[in-house]
């Protein structure tokens, strides 16, 4: 069985200003692949959360590091992977925040990975050589 695959590769660095690049790339593929506005926003959100985590926590020096974002549409599946050469870290092992707490007790932060897990259908992590690869998948409704 042949699959219909479309791929977009976005080269990023560990600078938060590259969030604009991510938003721009998503606008492009939303048009090319006819993605609904809500889905595009969800994809932007999960990529931002994953990317921001990498930028803020993966590197112990001040150097510029390349981060590769690959967005694929395979039939009715969207597969997003983010690859960095930072310290080994599996964000899928993070414990979920307690979302039933009041504002007073609720901790600031810890929501990013939780949102990714909730909004995507599948999230997996792999350490390949010196690279962290986080893969996030979502089915597109017909």
């Amino acid at each position, binding site marked *: 069985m042949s699959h219909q695959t479309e791929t977009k590769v976005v080269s990023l660095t560990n600078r938060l200003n590259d969030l*604009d690049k991510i938003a721009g790339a998503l606008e492009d593929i939303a048009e090319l692949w006819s993605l609904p*506005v809500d889905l595009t*926003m969800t994809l932007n959100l999960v990529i*931002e959360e994953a990317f921001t985590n990498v930028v803020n926590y993966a590197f112990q020096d001040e150097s510029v590091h390349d981060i590769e974002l690959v967005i694929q549409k395979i039939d009715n599946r969207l597969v997003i992977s983010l690859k960095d050469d930072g310290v080994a870290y599996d964000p899928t092992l993070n414990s979920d925040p307690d*979302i*039933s707490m009041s504002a007073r007790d609720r901790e*600031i932060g810890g929501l990013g990975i939780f*949102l990714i897990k909730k909004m995507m259908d599948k999230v997996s992590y792999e350490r390949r050589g010196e690279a962290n690869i986080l893969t996030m998948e979502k089915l597109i409704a017909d």
Partner: protein
Amino acid sequence: MLQVDFSSTAGYTVAHVIGRLDTVTATDFEGQMSKLISEGVTRIIFDCTKLGYVSSSGLRVFLLVQKQMSALGGKLKVCCLQPSIREIFDISGFSQIFSLFDSVESASQH
């Protein structure tokens, strides 16, 4: 891009949050809110009619302001969330933390 316009109604300062609240723009938003609170404002409405995007960094600022209002005996109300933003509030438990309203008017009267 994020823009915050301010107005007042019925004793509340209304912050009209317009555009994208991401990791970069949230820093600026946090600064503007800190300034407002340092000026003694304790009754705030966030009008999110034109808020098209929010990430966890933006939610973090909402929570920070809520905590500060609680500590000061003030009030923070949030109105007019778009459905996709409301979904993020629901998933993260923020719909229970904040007083949500459908209009600036109802937020200022309850």
